[in-house]
């Protein structure tokens, strides 16, 4: 969701009246994507809706800065993840995850869906900062530096949080850990 390559980006950035068409266009084109990210981050549709609403209100107040930013999407995403962290600190909202999970047979589609559901719920049990790092990496597909910039932390902290987060998730799914530790060999590994 890069605004610079998006055909609607020109209309989004045109205009300085926050109540004008630029803000309207931004909300129309971006709210669904923001909601998807908020949903994965919070694990709750209601909380995600509140988070996006609050984020867009903040965006409205800072619209000129958002529109003038090099990457408005990154700016808005930063607002959202920081609001999510603030909210978590205030309310400590978590979605309780049921313990463990049954093994699913290979090819069992229902089991696969159930397993993924459990994985998402396990994700929600991670500490907020750790969860945010995992979501930014695997859902938003950001680099260490981009995540570090969003959260105001160092890239090494991002890497350690990410490693710990994945380790915790794997610990809850031992049946998958056997697979996960077998990293695919890369050609670069052979050259070393």
């Amino acid at each position, binding site marked *: 969701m890069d605004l610079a390559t998006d055909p609607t980006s020109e209309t989004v950035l045109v205009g*300085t009246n*926050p*109540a004008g068409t630029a*803000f*309207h266009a931004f*909300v*129309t084109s971006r*709210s*669904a994507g923001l*909601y*998807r*990210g908020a*949903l*994965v981050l919070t694990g709750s*549709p209601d909380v*995600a*809706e509140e988070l*996006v*609403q609050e984020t*867009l*209100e*903040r965006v*409205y*107040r*800072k619209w*000129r*800065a958002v529109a003038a930013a090099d990457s408005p999407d990154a700016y808005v995403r930063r607002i959202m993840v920081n609001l999510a962290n603030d909210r978590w600190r205030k309310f400590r909202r978590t979605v309780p995850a049921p313990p463990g999970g049954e093994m699913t047979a290979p090819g069992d589609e229902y089991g696969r*869906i159930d*397993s*993924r*559901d459990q*994985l*998402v719920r396990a*994700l929600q049990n991670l500490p907020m900062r750790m969860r945010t790092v*995992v*979501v930014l*990496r*695997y*859902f938003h*597909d*950001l*680099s260490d530096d981009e995540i570090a910039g969003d959260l105001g932390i160092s890239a090494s902290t991002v*890497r*350690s949080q*990410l*490693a*710990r987060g*994945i*380790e915790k*998730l*794997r610990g809850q*799914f031992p049946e*998958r*850990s056997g*697979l*996960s*530790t*077998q*990293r*695919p060999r890369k050609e670069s590994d052979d050259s070393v």
Partner: protein
Amino acid sequence: MTPYDDVRPSGRGGGTPFEQELVSAMNDFADSATAPAFEPDVIARSSRRKRGVAVAALTAAAVIVGAGTALATIGHSAQGAGRAAGAEPTVPATASPAITEVNARWHFAQVELVTQKGHGLATIDLAGLTLKDAKTMLSKHNLRTGSITWAPCTGRRGTVLMVFHGTPRLVKAVGDPDYLKGMKLTDTVNVDLCSGNR
């Protein structure tokens, strides 16, 4: 060798089967719910209301810690005493020097004060005020009322219904004159009052 070598994620997008499964799980979950409709108008209104409340709270806090004494010294203490601190969004009197733009919205009885860098500073909400109170409020920011018109409504007679302007933006000549060069300057806010006839 780092302490995380055995579990360090293999890269963006998920390299190991577990990471790929995690990515799929998050995408499935994100697709599982339909995004609700977010109305820009509602968001804008809510944002303005929260900002007004925040400004009112700051004003109240300033009064509590002693700014009220300074304001009373300036005068018009009776005006301030008659109104509950949080009843209407108001702006601190000290905000005036930073204001360079005044944006009156025709559909709200609000005058938005904007700094030179374009950041919203505060909103004066004149809704429901008497003309005298509205004039006092505006005069704190070196603004004045322009044309006064009456409109039928169900509210109290003589109270402000809305403010409006004839030009795209009212700009008040405070601050950097170069920034304002070529723009139509005025310090006047036109007011619609409730005639109470409806």
